[in-house]
């Protein structure tokens, strides 16, 4: 079916946000099947341009799920506020009806026998999974260039990266392939690509979204969270997947913060009485000029909305990056040990002439990409008897200091803000030979992971020098995620009111561009 079937001048459903789609589907103004089909067509058109955001598109299953939701709605049952709305899933979350690759060769051919808790919750809430999105292999990377299935392009400029590791989910959401997507954030892997693609991305408080069925990169840091084109959409998806799960013992047995309510409140009211702290260590030298000026403008808007802005200092944050790059690889070296060719996925060299150890080695050599191997080696070293205290042990101490700095800052402030990333999206290939410069992209996002607190990135305009989106990061204490949504929603409305046009509608359309060329 082509878009012509919608009739001349028909509204493009892929431009609508999730809240509006949900309203229309549930009011039976449009069917979930129509919405789903429009997004599948959009995926086909955009992927043809080489965006490469999807690793797997489950068209038939999506249409069947949509039809089932339509039938239920016709019979008077609405499973949840987002029933009938399509969603994309980062391909490091386990799905029983779709492959799960983590963008790694080592999981070639594996069909999981179960659903991740978040996937189960999506299905139970009547959302329609469209497919699995591209990522840096095992979520290790900040540019999506580490995918075994090729880099994802940034819709704002196909020559640039979309960020990572949830680059596929971010790009797909930005460009309207899906209104919503799930990502995972270990050191910024939702917020950073959110900033790079001009989408809203949220890392919830650690332990508030189940990790059961998320292929672990760094268990103590990983957190699943939502992408949307609006703060409200992200909040609605957050509420679907969040909440206690007995299958994850690090899951907090407490009510989820009222994030949807907060997003709605933020869009209705002002920010009078909200104390906003600007973190000194997360802006300034080394930051791109356009990023700093967009951030400064955003802080000014918050002030105009009535927030009380103060500067705070968190000295330990400068140590966050090196600490993170010891803790995360350490856990990863252990988490990824299970990929050994014995039970599932790739097996290399099993020709009868090799021992078990040799087959394991050959498979891991062939199945893992360079960045994954680098981190396994760093982590193995950091945990080894001679280095543990000086590396892993010391990094854990830094983590304690980061927690303390946050606690002190949150005594003075309700939320903390910073640019989400020091720069805008960089050109593909620019940093692949320089891992350390790649790691610097996580500078502002890592502290929230180390402390287990919540962070939200909301677009705050474009950098003047390159026209690429900039993100405003809003961080809150643990279990106060709702504050980030309130501030984010208030800012978002003020931003769009000032420009006169919804920011989300300004993303270039790769399909149209290619059609024109």
């Amino acid at each position, binding site marked *: 079916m082509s878009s012509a079937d919608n009739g001349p001048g028909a509204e493009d459903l892929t431009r609508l946000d999730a809240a509006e789609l949900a309203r229309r589907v549930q009011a039976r103004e449009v069917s979930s099947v129509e919405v789903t089909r429009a997004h599948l067509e959009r995926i086909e058109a955009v992927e043809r341009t080489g965006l490469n955001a999807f690793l797997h598109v489950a068209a038939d299953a999506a249409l069947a799920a949509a039809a089932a939701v339509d039938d239920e709605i016709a019979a008077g049952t609405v499973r949840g506020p987002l029933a009938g709305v399509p969603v994309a899933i980062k391909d490091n979350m386990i799905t029983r009806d779709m492959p799960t690759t983590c963008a790694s060769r080592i999981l070639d051919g594996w069909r*999981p026998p179960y659903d991740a808790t978040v996937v189960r919750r999506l299905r139970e809430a009547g959302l329609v999974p469209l497919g699995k999105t591209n990522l840096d292999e095992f979520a290790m990377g900040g540019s999506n260039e580490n995918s075994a299935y090729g880099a994802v392009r940034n819709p704002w400029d196909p020559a640039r990266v979309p960020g990572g590791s949830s680059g596929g989910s971010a790009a797909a959401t930005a460009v309207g392939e899906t209104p919503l997507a799930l990502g995972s954030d270990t050191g910024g892997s939702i917020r950073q690509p959110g900033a790079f693609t001009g989408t809203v991305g949220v890392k919830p408080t650690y332990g508030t979204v189940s990790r059961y*069925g998320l292929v672990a990169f760094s268990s103590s840091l990983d957190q699943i969270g939502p992408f949307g084109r609006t703060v409200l959409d992200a909040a609605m998806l957050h509420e679907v997947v969040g909440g206690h799960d007995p299958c*994850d*013992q690090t899951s907090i047995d407490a009510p989820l913060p009222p994030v949807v309510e907060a997003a709605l409140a933020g869009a209705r009211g002002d920010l009078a009485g909200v104390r906003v702290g600007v973190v000194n260590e997360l802006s300034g030298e080394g930051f791109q000029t356009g990023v700093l000026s967009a951030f400064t403008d955003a802080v000014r808007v918050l002030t105009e909305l009535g927030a009380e802005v103060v500067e705070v200092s968190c000295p330990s944050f400068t140590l966050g990056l090196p600490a993170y790059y010891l803790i995360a690889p350490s856990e990863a070296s252990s988490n990824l040990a299970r990929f*050994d060719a014995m039970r599932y996925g790739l097996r290399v060299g099993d020709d009868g002439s090799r021992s*078990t150890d040799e087959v394991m080695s050959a498979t891991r050599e062939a199945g893992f990409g360079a960045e994954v191997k680098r981190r396994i080696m760093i982590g193995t070293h950091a945990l*080894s008897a001679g280095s543990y205290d000086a590396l892993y042990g010391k990094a854990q101490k830094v983590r304690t200091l980061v927690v303390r700095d946050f606690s002190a800052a949150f005594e003075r402030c309700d939320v903390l803000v910073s640019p989400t990333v020091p720069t805008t999206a960089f050109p593909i290939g620019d940093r692949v030979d320089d891992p350390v410069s790649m790691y610097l992209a996580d500078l502002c996002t890592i502290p929230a992971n180390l402390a287990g607190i919540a962070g939200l990135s909301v677009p705050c305009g474009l950098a003047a020098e390159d026209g690429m989106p900039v993100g405003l990061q809003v961080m809150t204490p643990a279990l106060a995620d709702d504050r980030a949504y309130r501030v984010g929603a208030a800012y978002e409305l003020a931003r769009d009111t000032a420009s006169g046009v919804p920011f989300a509608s300004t993303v270039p359309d790769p399909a149209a561009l290619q059609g024109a060329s």
Partner: protein
Amino acid sequence: MTTVEAAPYTVEEVCERFDPVMGLEVHVELNTATKMFCGCRNEFGAEPNTNICPVCLGLPGALPRVNARAVESAVTIGLALNCSVRERSGFARKNYFYPDMPKNFQISQYEDPIVFDGYLDVPLDDGSTWRVEIERAHMEEDTGKSLHMGGATGRIHGADYSLLDYNRAGVPLIEIVTRPIVGAGTRAPEVARAYVSALRDVVKGLGVSDVRMDQGSMRCDANVSLMPKGSSTFGTRTETKNVNSLRSVERAVRYEMGRQAGVLLSGGTVRQETRHFDEQSGTTSPGRAKETLADYRYFPEPDLVPIEPSAEWVEGLRKELPERPWERRARIQSDWGLSDEELRDLVNADALDLVAATVDAGASSESARSWWVSYLAQQANTQGVALTELAITPEQVARVIALVSEGTLTNKLARQVVDGVLAGEGSPDDVVAGRGLAVVSDDSALTAAVDEALAAQPAVAEKIRAGKTKAAGAIVGAVMKATRGQADAARVNELVLERVGASS
């Protein structure tokens, strides 16, 4: 390179020059209904790879969750071993690659084991006790099982291929580690066996494990080293694995003492290594060569939160602790007036608990003991099952005994009743009613049967009448046969004499 082992010295010879030091690590598989970190059934002997799920298979994305019952069992074992219970105890990952370990790390405990610093007073053969200090006991998950096919040894080297069974992967284990056992001298092998034996009894008494060494639900690794007499600096130790019976514990320690003495006395040095005990030859041989110490890269398990047992809960468990097995045995021995030999027979027959339960249900200790060690033991033997697996309860045995003592059953009838219970015919009373087995105590019915028998054998009747009262036995036999054994033979004898008028 093959190493020719020196001929072992006897323990006495070894101890003229050296003091042995031992460290015993015992793994106990808990008998919880489910595994340590998932809901899969924990059972021995199921079809391979049937009790498995994403968690115990270590599939990507799956996460462990702690079995609360296993924690309770671990704390209970710790309390029984006089250990302290840690207020905050975490899990750790032990990293190494092996195909029977699905995640290539084992979830264990490292720096903060759940219980620590205890002791066990171990009874020795001569009636004295030896205090073995417990360093720690910690929780961990078992690995799967590798089955190496082809090749001569059943070990991985030389095998054609290997099969993996993950049913055991994730089964809860408690590893109990002693402090170095020093000063046992020539008694070291005995102390080792007595310790493992006492530990087995204690754990069995707690009901938290089957502690079957033959099935691997209790496994012992024996660390042995020698130091020159008078020295307090430990020598290099070896760790002997595959020690699968109490006897093997003793033999393995004895062999290692002799072997190490041989190495040292010939000017060599003992290599720190893992050794494998061979049941057939009673010797140990080097296992996988480990030139360097394995680095397991332990670090805190990030998928689990620490366990914080409350003091009230721990005290509750302490109150529930049963009597120590040997203390209980001593009490029973004196209560029942048993000789050492009688007690040992009961213990060896695995009948002590059954007899005790039968006594608790009202039977005398003599009759309870007699039933369990003779008739019921024979039946178990015939059926090829353990005594405890017989389909009769101590309460039912006590009921049979009561029926005999109140005269409803003869001993012979009682055995038939027991047979009926074992055959699934219901309770002893059900069998008595169903088979019509009660003693015939109605004299008129018996008199009729006696008269009939006398009439059938007039010559015998004449003999009796003539004073040969012993001849009455033939008539009694006929009556017993006619009543299918349900008569009281003594009463029948009286009636016979009465009817022929022989009773002077």
